[in-house]
């Protein structure tokens, strides 16, 4: 099959899935589950083929589709794979079947609507990653809100309405300012080059005075930073995670949060390079604050979901640090860290969901000594904990190590020029690794070891379905930890392009743009 057609097929399979679910007669919940799983597996299969066919040596887009959509405005339906999105698309497709399978026993209310919403968000997430036109990107970006709003709001916990409204109102506020910035940016392109286009490739050529760049970067960054989320815009995340059903948490932590960092990498920083370089100390500082503050908060939580939620804030701080370092290793590390966090956080949330289904509490104090009661569960949990800490041979190590290495490599020349700030930030970031080990190991120790206690005495260990889900994730974590060369090679060209785009000045003398 033609690759471009196949990419479209991957993108639209979830919509086909919704149509298939709609056609199913009411009451056949098992058929709804199996159909959803089948569609997700088909999607993963096609995505893997695309990934294998992806040529790492080509700069720019592959498997591209470009059709006029709103021709009066210069909007194109343009999608394609490049080094920026190829791993994230694979991650999204990889988590799809796991999310569906993970919800088999947990979701019993409005099953059809639930899987339809999972498909819808899958569609929107893939679309956001593959879109190469800013208008299309924005449409997909906003479309993600609604299925998540419903997933948390319908199938969530006790305070689900509060949590889901908080999530939507936070994210929508970021998007609305981004919308103004998008229009202004496109308008500026027309002013300077006479070209009306929303294509990323064209927008990378826009030249703007630094002050305008800074305002636009602020508008974009607000939207992306809320999604990441970076401290101090993170307060929606713990609520959303705690109240969301397991599938919602997995999607949220696994893919949705990466939208923010992807947005920075693909749009925010490269579109406004001069403003970005001027703001690098601030970005680094916020990244490091996220790392340390997130870790500290994770340390004191008593709710197991909240521990993982705050650890997400900490882990994504590394991604931001890597992107801000502008060092090739740091950038590549950031990409690996995105995927790695997607895998470990998804796995941990799935595991929390599994124990919650059995015991109906997330209070850490209610548990203890699970290693004796549920040995298989505990082994998986231990592996995921170690991956989250970043133990060598796991994916977490590759990501965090490369990011820190890149941060130091980027900071050293600046230090030699007399500015110690980036170096100081890198040093503080390292402490995040220690803190990470501290809260995760302490969590695992209280959870798995010690006096055996659980809300229910007759706990059954994992069943085959659950074992398979977790084994799949663990295999992926080790694969990424042991053989990172292959994914690194696929993203290298893009990382260099990012480095070059953000590193080159594209400013104009103030006033000449308008």
């Amino acid at each position, binding site marked *: 099959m033609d690759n471009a057609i196949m990419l479209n097929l991957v993108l639209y399979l979830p919509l086909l899935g919704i149509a298939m679910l709609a056609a199913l007669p009411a009451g056949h919940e098992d058929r709804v589950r199996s159909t959803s799983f089948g569609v997700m597996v088909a999607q993963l299969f096609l995505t893997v083929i695309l990934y294998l066919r992806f040529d790492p040596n080509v700069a720019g887009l592959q498997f591209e589709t470009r059709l006029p959509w709103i021709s009066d405005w210069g909007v194109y339906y343009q999608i394609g794979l490049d080094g920026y999105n190829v791993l994230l698309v694979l991650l999204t497709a990889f988590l799809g079947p796991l999310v569906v399978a993970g919800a088999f026993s947990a979701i019993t209310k409005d099953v059809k609507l639930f899987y339809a919403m999972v498909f819808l968000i899958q569609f929107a997430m893939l679309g956001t990653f593959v879109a190469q036109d800013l208008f299309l990107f924005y449409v997909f970006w906003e479309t993600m809100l609604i299925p998540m709003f419903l997933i948390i709001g319908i199938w969530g916990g006790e305070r689900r309405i509060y949590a889901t409204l908080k999530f939507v109102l936070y994210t929508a506020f970021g998007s609305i*300012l981004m919308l103004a910035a998008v229009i202004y940016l496109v308008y500026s392109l027309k002013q300077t080059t006479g070209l009306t286009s929303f294509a990323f490739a064209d927008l990378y050529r826009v030249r703007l005075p630094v002050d305008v760049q800074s305002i636009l970067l602020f508008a974009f960054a607000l939207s992306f930073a809320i999604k990441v989320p970076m401290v101090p815009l993170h307060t929606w995340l713990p609520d959303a995670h705690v109240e969301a059903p397991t599938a919602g948490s997995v999607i949220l932590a696994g893919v949705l949060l990466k939208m923010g960092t992807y947005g920075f990498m693909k749009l925010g920083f490269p579109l406004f390079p001069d403003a970005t370089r001027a703001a690098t100390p601030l970005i680094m500082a916020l990244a490091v604050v996220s790392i340390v503050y997130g870790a500290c908060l994770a340390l004191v939580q008593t709710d197991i979901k909240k521990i993982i939620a705050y650890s997400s804030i900490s882990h994504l701080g590394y991604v931001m640090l890597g992107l801000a370092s502008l060092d090739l290793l740091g950038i590549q590390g950031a990409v690996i860290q995105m995927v790695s966090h997607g895998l470990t956080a998804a796995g941990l949330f799935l595991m929390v969901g599994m124990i919650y289904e059995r015991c109906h509490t997330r209070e850490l104090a209610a548990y203890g000594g699970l290693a004796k009661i549920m040995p298989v569960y505990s082994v998986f949990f231990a592996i995921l904990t170690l991956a989250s800490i970043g133990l060598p041979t796991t994916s977490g190590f590759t990501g965090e190590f490369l990011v820190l290495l890149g941060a130091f490599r980027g900071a050293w020349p600046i230090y030699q020029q007399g500015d110690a700030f980036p170096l100081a930030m890198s040093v503080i970031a390292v402490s995040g690794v220690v803190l990470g080990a501290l809260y995760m190991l302490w969590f695992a120790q209280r959870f798995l070891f010690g006096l055996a206690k659980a809300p229910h005495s007759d706990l059954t260990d994992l069943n085959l379905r659950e074992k398979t889900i977790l084994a799949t994730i663990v295999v992926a974590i080790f694969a990424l930890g042991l053989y990172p060369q292959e994914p690194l090679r696929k993203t290298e060209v893009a990382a260099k392009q990012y480095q070059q785009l953000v590193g080159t000045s594209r400013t104009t003398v103030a006033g000449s743009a308008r």
Partner: protein
Amino acid sequence: MSWQAALIAMLPEHLLLAGIVLLTLIEIAPRRWASPLAVSAVLVAAAALAAALMSLAGYAAAPFAGHFSVTPTTLLAKAIVLALTVPVVLLARDDFGDDGQFYLLLLSSLYGVSLLLSADSFLTLFLGLELMSLPVYALVLLAFRRPESAEAALKYLILGGTATATFLMGASLLFGSSGTLALSTFAKALSANDVLAQAAVVLIILSFFLKAAVVPFHTWAPDAYEAASIPVTAYMAVVIKAGVLLAAVRLVGQAPLSSTMVDLLAILPLISIVWGNLTAMRQSSFRRMIAYSSIAHAGYLYYAFLGAGDTRFTAVVFYVLAYGVMNLLAFASLPRSADDNARDHLDHLRGLYQRDPFAALMIGMAMLSLAGIPPLPGFVAKFLIFKNVIAAGYTLYAVLGLVGSYLGIYFYLRVIQYLFMSTREPTAEAVITQRAALGAGVLCLIPAVVLSVFPGWVIGLL
């Protein structure tokens, strides 16, 4: 002018007139020989079709030179407004059945709207405005379901009369300063330095603000919307608003605006957006909520005038279409109930997904579109307006308007929360799906999907 030209150019109006005559005959005949609903549905649809076909054929004529003219673009706008009335007619089945008065008044008002869209002189414009408004005062009262209806109708009548008087005052000042009744004098007066002309312009703009319920001239709208029956509310929210805005586009045309005019056309609509969205949050009645939402939407629509001259028509027509289709979709999908008060209460929507998934999905989609969330048509419509405002250089107004639109997201989401996330009330009765309303819903759903997937095609047509 030849009588043939008048016959062809006014074909949509003639079809409506034929409908009015037929409905009168049905009413006075001793025996019911046709269904008023069917007659009005067929003739309104025929009028819309005629306008659309004439537009496609590129028909242009001025049968009454200086007073009435048609061009392909105005015919397309006319076709859209007429087509938006078809679901309104179908919706009326539940409330009015075969009560001929309703359809008679509706078609008369529609005739006025149709006239407005072709007006070339203040005379025709005034005729259109009055013909559009007068039947609606009666329509608000027609169902007479609650004691407040009379009060609301009277309020609407008095404020509508004030708008008329203001409009006439402005038009006469303009006539005094220019000596002609042609609409084009308004566009000239926009940039004139003459105090008389400027006073006239301000008066006329304010009368249009009043008709479209822009803050602070909005107080009639929530009462009138709540007092009226569902089809009348839908008609007021969609068709009347569209008529007023399209008439305003006809008035302002492509004329450049002076900075004073820009402020006038931006500040009150901006307040409208913010106030409408904030107040809608507190409503417990669906129709009142839609009223405040429509006040905010009037604000977005007037924002379109800040854009460059040649962009205004497209922006307004596209917005009216997207907004109208989605509003009607919501009204068509509302669950039925014998008790009008209960039916109107937002609590009636609680857990609707459990009772009627299709209706819940439709209302939810309509709310999201009205909130401007992509990929639904409301987003493209809003994008088009704000794009033009920024391109014209009024970035600050655009940002403030967008932030104002953000305030609206909450109450639309609250409806979705009621639909999907609340459990059904034990007292709520089962839903009886009405075939006519379902038809109206499907009639709106198809254009909604087309607008979402191929917005470029529709924009290209305009």
